[in-house]
Every structure is written in C-alpha cells, then in structure tokens.
C-alpha cells in the first residue's frame, strides 16, 4: 500500500470512508487519485427516486379498468421471486405474474452486457450445493451447470466450475495464490490458523441429538440447539478471541470474509453467521473442497435463465405500490413506469418477494406487531463498479485470477468477468466491490446518496493503484452502481431472534419470500424462500404437489 493509504485498517476504516465520500477531492488523496478528466462512465442506481416516493406515500393516478384476475401474483423479480415462479411452473401453474419494479429482473443478482462480455452488478457465484440441496441441484441441472455422474454423484460442468487460477491476494507488494497472506504469517499465526481450522472443522462435523448439523444451507435446517444459537449473541471477533485466535492476519482474513458475504466487519457480524460462512458448505470436514460455480454475468446467468423460462409471466418496470388483502382475493395496485399509468390485479394468493422493509410501505394494513418485527431488519449498502479495460495491465507474480483481493483494503477487490470465457489476453471487464460497513446503515445510505461518480472513480483508482500502477492506461470506462439496501445484515441476535420468524408468517393470503428472511443475503437462501412461499401458495390453493424442500 502506498503511504497515502491509511495504514491500520482497524482504526482508520471509518475515517477513511468518511473522507472518501465527503471530501474526495481534498488532499487526503495526496493528489494521486484525482479522477482523470477523459475517463467516462455512468453513475447507476436501482430506482432510488421511485423507491423513496413510494416510501413517502406516493399516490399515482387512479387505476383504470377492472382488476386483472390472476391465481398468484409475485411481487419482486429477484432470485426469490423468480424461484417462486419456477416452483409454480413446475407444479403446472401458468396463470400468475411476476412484477418487477426495475427495468430488468434479478435484484442484486442483475447483470449487464458489453460488446465483449456479460458482467455482474452484484452477486457473482454460487458454491457447489451439497447433495441435500436437491432443489437447487435440479435448477442448476436445468441450466446445464451441474450433472449427475453415472455413480450418482453430482459434478459441475467444466465451463461453470471456476477456472484455475481462482483467487489471489496482493500483499507485501506482490500477488500470491489464495486469499490468506501466508507469506506474511509468523509461526504463531500459523499455529492460530490451525486452531481456527480445527474449530471450524469441529462445527462442520457437529450434530445435535436429532442428527441435525449446526450449520447448513438453508438456514432453516440448522440445529436450534442452544449450544449453536448461543453463538449468535457474540460478534465474530469476540468468538475468535475466545478460541484464542488473536492474530491480526487471521482477523483480517475473517473480516474480509464477513465483508464479502455480509457487508459487515468481523466485529459487527454475529459469530453464528461468521461460522456459518466457513462451516455450512461441507457435510464432513474431511470432504474435498467443492468448486465454486460462476458465469461471466455472475448470478445474472441464473436470472437470465429463469427470466427466459418465465417470460410469459414476468413483467418489468412495474412498481407495485399498494397491496390490499380482501376476504378471498388480494388487490394489488401497480404503476407502469413505461406508460406512466396505474392498473390493478386481483390475485387469489400473493408472494411478497421484495425486501421486507418495503412491506411497511406497500401493505398499509400490516399489523403493528408485524411492523415492529420488520423494522428490526437492517440492510447494508454497497457500491459496485465495472471497469472496462482495453487490455491487461502488465504484471508478474501469480497471474490474474477470477477473484483478486487486496490485503488491508476497504474494498473487496475485483472479479474478472472474462475469466470463465477462458480469455487470458486483451480487453476485459473487472467488477470491483465495496461494502459500506458503517455502524448505522442509514448514515451509510445518506452518504451514498450524496456521493458522486467522481468520488467513486477516484476511490477505485486509489484502491487499485499499488497493485496496478498503470491501470489508468487501459481503462476505457467505469460504471458505478450504488446499492442502498444491498444485503440484510446478520448482526448479533438477528438470526436467532423472534423478528425474523415473525416476518415470514403469511399475512392473509400474502406469503413472504426473500433472502432477508434467513438473515443472510445468499442466492441459496433466496431460492429456498422462493420455493417455500410457492409451496405455501400451492397448499393454500389446494394443488397436489410433492415438496421440493422438505427434508
């Protein structure tokens, strides 16, 4: 890191962010990160304006005509809503709609495409599901991403399993393989690392009296035993210290992992969620590492697949602004962003697959008890930048990988969109991630709203400067996306708390989906809740079906 980068990430991270956002052009940048005048790009946001208008009681024109009757209406076209649609379609239903406010489906899994390649705007991989997650394997098989081998075991398609070299870390002035800065580790660090691994392995192999694992996907199948849920009272940092892991390097590494999956620092993340990250993927500690599944578009590839499959049902640019549950049917008022007109649907059942906080504004009759529960959901903000490059900056050491992380940076580094295409030369797109880990999420959102494209471009260039001093020469465009409510935050107490369980109870004929109901923002959890809500609907309508999610 160059001398203008704050040396101690522990004490300086908030200061840095503040100065980065509020005073990006002032001397803290040391004059070396000024935004170059010729660089172009766009500042993008999911419909901030409309979201805020709905929050503030937006009243569009009176709906025209009689309400359109459908069996099921799905509010939200992210992974949860699309998965719900996938489940309904598998049960033979056709008379349903998925309404998405944005002009494209996908939520935080959405992606974009240039002449060169598709690239993600958010979630960009799925760890290979374990054999118990049959429903997800089924979806991935339909996509051609996994297949069952003659011996019955599941394997990843070679085009989708992340290509080697997978991960590298820039530390001590050079790139090395993997994400742990092993070459900086002392013997004590190594000893503590073994301790950390042993503790994680203990949790992987742990089973309760009924044989349930402590951590697995979906969260619903994790053991409710006190020995496990107790961990939710601690922060991950506290837990590390308790097991005798005080090493700065390991704390950095775990902090990186927490920020990567939850957008929270190691001292903000619940220990339950922190251990979940390391222990939920494997069923046995002796199991081989499973591959990561990824696509140039990131999880946008899943969105594209489901969107094509659900094309007759999916409508984008449709902002639901009012849900009114009645005796037998729910009336849903929708504002069409294209035609700027309002219309209504009348649905037997509704799946609410938007973030839970939106229920506060869209369902006025929601009980006060439910509202209190929903208010406990906290969401972190993210910035994602896509860097379009005319070529690869020359470098030595470990080669450009899929995931490229910078030691002690506040960003999460970048993933390379063209990696999975097998491209090793020439133009590419890098997707850079930055979680805002402020103590009070609303403050982060305020700063985010006031920040400019220039602020973020300067920060991106500064962040990558030590590793890629001549990056600027290859940059043709930087687009920046501000995500205000990117991820639900698993702070201590939330995953095992009452609020989360309350928020998923159906309200009349409205059923709730969304990854936030797990307390963790994971594709697998969004998928699971989509299926769960869809099966609640199938049961309510009286359709015969075999559950895809029952154990």
């Amino acid at each position, binding site marked *: 890191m160059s001398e203008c980068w704050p040396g101690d990430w522990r004490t300086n991270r908030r200061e840095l962010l503040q100065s980065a956002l509020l005073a990006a052009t002032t001397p803290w940048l040391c004059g070396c990160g000024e935004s170059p005048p010729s660089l172009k790009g766009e500042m993008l946001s999911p419909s901030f304006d409309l979201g805020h208008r709905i929050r503030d009681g937006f009243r569009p024109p009176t709906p025209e005509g009689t309400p359109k009757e459908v069996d099921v209406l799905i509010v939200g076209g992210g992974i949860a809503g699309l998965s719900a649609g996938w489940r309904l379609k598998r049960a033979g239903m056709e008379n349903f709609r998925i309404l998405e406010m944005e002009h494209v489906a996908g939520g935080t899994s959405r992606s974009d495409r240039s002449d060169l390649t598709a690239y993600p705007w958010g979630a960009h991989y799925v760890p290979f599901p374990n054999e118990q997650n049959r429903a997800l394997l089924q979806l991935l098989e339909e996509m051609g991403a996994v297949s069952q081998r003659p011996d019955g075991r599941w394997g990843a398609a*070679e085009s989708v*399993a992340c*290509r*080697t*070299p997978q991960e590298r870390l820039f530390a001590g002035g050079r790139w090395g393989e993997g994400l742990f800065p092993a070459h900086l580790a002392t013997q004590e660090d190594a000893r503590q690392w073994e301790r950390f691994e042993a503790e994680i392995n203990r949790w992987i192999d742990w089973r309760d009296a009924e044989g349930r694992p402590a951590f697995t996907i979906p969260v619903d199948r994790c053991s409710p035993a006190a020995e496990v849920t107790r961990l939710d009272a601690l922060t991950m940092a506290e837990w590390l210290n308790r097991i005798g892991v005080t090493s700065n390097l390991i704390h950095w590494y775990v902090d990186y992992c927490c920020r990567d999956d939850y957008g929270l620092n190691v001292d903000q993340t619940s220990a339950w969620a922190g251990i979940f990250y390391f222990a939920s993927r494997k069923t046995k500690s002796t199991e081989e590492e499973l591959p990561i599944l990824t696509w140039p578009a990131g999880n946008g590839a899943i969105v594209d697949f489901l969107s094509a499959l659900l094309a007759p049902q999916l409508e984008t640019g449709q902002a639901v602004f009012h849900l009114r549950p009645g005796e037998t049917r729910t009336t849903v008022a929708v504002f069409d962003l294209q035609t700027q007109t309002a219309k209504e649907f009348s649905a037997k059942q509704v799946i609410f697959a938007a973030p839970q906080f939106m229920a506060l504004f869209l369902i006025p009759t929601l009980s006060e008890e439910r509202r209190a529960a929903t208010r406990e959901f906290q969401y972190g903000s993210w910035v994602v930048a896509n860097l379009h490059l005319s070529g690869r900056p020359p470098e030595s050491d470990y*080669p450009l990988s899929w995931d490229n992380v910078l030691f002690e940076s506040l960003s999460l580094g970048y993933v390379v969109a063209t990696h999975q295409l097998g*491209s*090793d*030369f020439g133009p590419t797109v890098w997707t850079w991630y930055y979680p805002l880990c402020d103590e009070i999420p609303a403050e982060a959102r305020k700063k985010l709203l006031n920040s400019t494209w220039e602020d973020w471009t300067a920060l991106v260039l500064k962040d990558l400067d030590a590793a890629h001093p001549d990056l600027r020469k290859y940059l043709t465009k930087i687009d920046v996306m501000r995500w205000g409510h990117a991820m639900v935050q698993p702070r201590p107490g939330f995953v095992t708390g009452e609020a989360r369980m309350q928020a998923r109870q159906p309200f009349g004929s409205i059923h709730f989906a969304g990854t936030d109901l797990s307390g963790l923002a994971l594709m697998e959890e969004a998928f699971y809740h989509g299926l769960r809500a869809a099966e609640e609907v199938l049961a309510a309508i009286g359709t015969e079906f075999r559950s895809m999610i029952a154990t």
Partner: protein
Amino acid sequence: MNRAPLFLLYLNVLAVATCGLIYELLAGTLASYLLGDSVTQFSLVIGIYLSALGVGAWLSKFVERKLARCFIEVELGVALLGGTSAPFLFLAFGAIDWFQVLLYGLVFLIGTLVGLELPLLMRILKDHVDFNDLVSRVLTFDYIGALLASILFPTLLVPQLGLIRTSLIFGILNALVGLWGTFLLRPLLTDRELGGLRGRATLVIGLLAAAFIKADDLTSYAEESQLSASIIHAESSPYQRILITQNKTGFQLFLNGHLQFNSFDEYRYHEALVHPAMAAPTPRRNVLVLGGGDGLAVREILRYPEVEQITLVDLDPKMTSLAKRFPPLAELSDHSLDDPRVTVINQDAFIWIDQQSNKFDTVIVDFPDPGTFSVGKLYSTFFYRKLQQRLTDDARITIQCTSPLVAPQSYWCILRTLEAAGFHVQPYHAAVPTFGIWGYAFATRVPADPPTEMDPEIVSQCRFLNSEIMQGLFEAPGDIQTVDAEVNQLNNQILVQYYEREWSRWE
C-alpha cells in the same frame, strides 16, 4: 615532462579510445537485442555517438583552467557511465516505458564526455610536444584503439564475458586509466586536487568491481545467458518475448526464454509430430494446426498434395509474421505460411474453438509446454471436448506432450486427459537431440491403429522418418511406462503443477 610519461600518455589515448568504442558497441548491441531491428538501432547509436563526440570537442573550448584535473574528472565520469551502462539499461528496460529516451540520452552523454577527452589531452600536451607530432600520434593511437575495440568486442568480449561483464570491466579499466593519469599528470595537479581525484577514482573502481561480483545475478535477470549464442532477432509482443539466436549448429527460437526448436534437428521433432496423423488410410484434406506459428509443422503437412486447406491458429501475430518475413525462418519453413492453402488466424485457440462450426479431418496440436495456466487450459478435458466437436468421425490428431522422461507425470496426465475427453489414445515418442526423448500422443475418435506405412513419395522428402522408423515411434521402451496421473481440468489445472514440479528438478 620527459619522454617516458609522454609515451604512456599515448597509451592512455589508446585505452580511452578503446573504452569509448566499446561503450558504443555495447549500446548498439543492447538496443538491437532489446528493441529488435538491428539496422536502425546501430545506425542511431553510431550517429548519436559520433555527433556527441563533436559536441564534446566543441564544449572543450569552455574549459579554460585546470585542464589536467578536468581531463581526469571526465575520464572517471566516462568510467562510471560507460561501465554501468549495460547493466543499467538491462534493468531499466523492464522497469520504464521511455527506454529509448534513456538509451539514446546515455549514448549521447557518454559520447560528449569521450569527445571532451582528446581535445583536453592535446591542449595539456601542446606545450611539451611539437604540434604536428602531437596531432599525428594522438589520432593514430585513437584509431588503433577503435580497431582494437571492434575486433575484441565480437570475437572475445561478448562470447566470453557477455554484455554486462564487458561493460563493467571496461568501466574499471577506464577508471584505472584515470587513476594512472593522476600519476602521469602529477606536476599539473595541486595536492588537494590529487587527493580528491584519487579518492573518487578508487570509489568508482570499487563500485564497478562490486557490480562485477554481482554480475551473475544481473546476468540471469537480464536473460543475457542466451547471448552466448549471438542474437539475430528479438522482439516483444503483448503475449511473449520472441528471441532467435544463432550458433554454429544453426539457429534457435526462444519464446519467453523457453527453447522452441533448433534449426539443426527440428525436422525430427516436426516429422514425428505431423506424419503419424497425416499418413492415414484415407486422404487428409482439411487440416487444423493449433499453435505452430513457426510454420514448420505446416511445411510437413504441405508435402501431401491431397491437402486442400490448412487452418493455423496461433495466438501471436508477431510470431506468424516472423515465420513469413524473417528470412532464415521463412526458408526453414519453405515459406509454408505463404501457401495459398494456408489460412493463418491469430487468436487464443481456447476462444477460437468456441466460435467454429466447420470440421477437420486432421489436427496437429503444437502448443508450448503447459508451464502456465494460460497454456494449461489448452490441455484440459474442456478444450479437448470442444476440439472433438470440430472433428470428422475418422479424424486423426497428434499432440506434442512434453518429455515423457523428464516429466512423466505431466506426459501421462495429458494422455489421461485426452482419454477422459473421449479420445482413443496411443503414446509415442521420438529422439530430438536438442530436447532429448520427446513425447507425443496419437488420438482418434474411434479406435484406430497408428499408421504403419508411409507413402514413398513422402518418405523421399523426409530426413528422419520412413515406414519402419514410424512403427518404431510407437514401441514403448522400458523407461517410458505409464505412471499415475490425474485428469487436467480447468478448475484444477493439475498439469501445470505436475509440469512445474517435474521440470524444476532439472533447473
């Protein structure tokens, strides 16, 4: 001053002239080596150097006092600049973008300082010697020095010492001459000047000597070892560094420092690579060559008159254009890439294969060894499966597979990977003196026997193969037996690990 020191001063002129020309030759050679295009580089270096001599001579008139001291200072300056020039330029080449500015600037600076030397010396001596005699002797020794340098440089210095050591040694020599000058010109120097000059001379000598001791590290850094053979072409592309060297046996192509072939025995490698695929029961008409941008595999394919189309896919346009335009290589390849039946495509084969729809009846796979992930991906089940979709049912392919003796696990990993991708595979090998025993694979979509007969027409054009030798290639000797190896997949690239481990034992 008496006669003896005067004669020694002429020796001084000789040394100065030799050193000066050596620095010029070093700069020219280095520029040709690093930047390629030796005609341009030598012209520019000579031109800049000569004009700088003139600038130095002109500047000398501004030195009015303390001629002796100034002369020795200049000599020490030349010693330091010239002595460090080669190592400095080698190191700078990798580190900066404005290398040419630095190179020509340095040549100009050295030239200017050398240009100052003779006028100063002549002015020092003019009061002690008859002017006619002075001019004649100084210039005579100057030109003898130049002759000495131009003979020593190519015959002794570069082959024996290399560029970096030559540079440092002549720097030291130059500084010694400067130190010696403080003795010869003692009467013209004050005591204070004398101490300062001798101190500085010792410092320069020490510095250059230290660098000389460290020269091994510098040399390996600069890949200069390859200069033991003379470099006849060098260029860098965005993909690799291309270097062609020449020695008595022939010329050699290096890509990123790895030897690709030696013109002396490449026919053995290429005949063994190509003919087992081409000598098939049915005529081969549509041939794909992957890698092989040197055009040598294509030369072998073109021996078959029934071939209608050859598609060559090589990453680097500089490599394929070198094969067409660089005379020794164009001749060695019989101008194969200029044949109308040949289509050259410069693209990463991994990307290209995904964009194809036509089918080939023969494929010659001649990629570099799998030493990096970006090459290792071209030896994966994924790539081989894609390749299989581009083949006719009776297609035959041959693949270069590194050495089965040096890197047995790498070799068998490639064969296992081909099998995992659905090919029927036969191992074979050939002796290539430059490489040792080299390994190949013969692969088909349906079970097929390797060829046993070669067309006499073709044999008559081959230097190595005939029907018996071809059969012999497929016989497995005792020391090339199957070893266990995993299948190389994109998400493990196990082959690159095998390869690194096995070849590192030989370095």
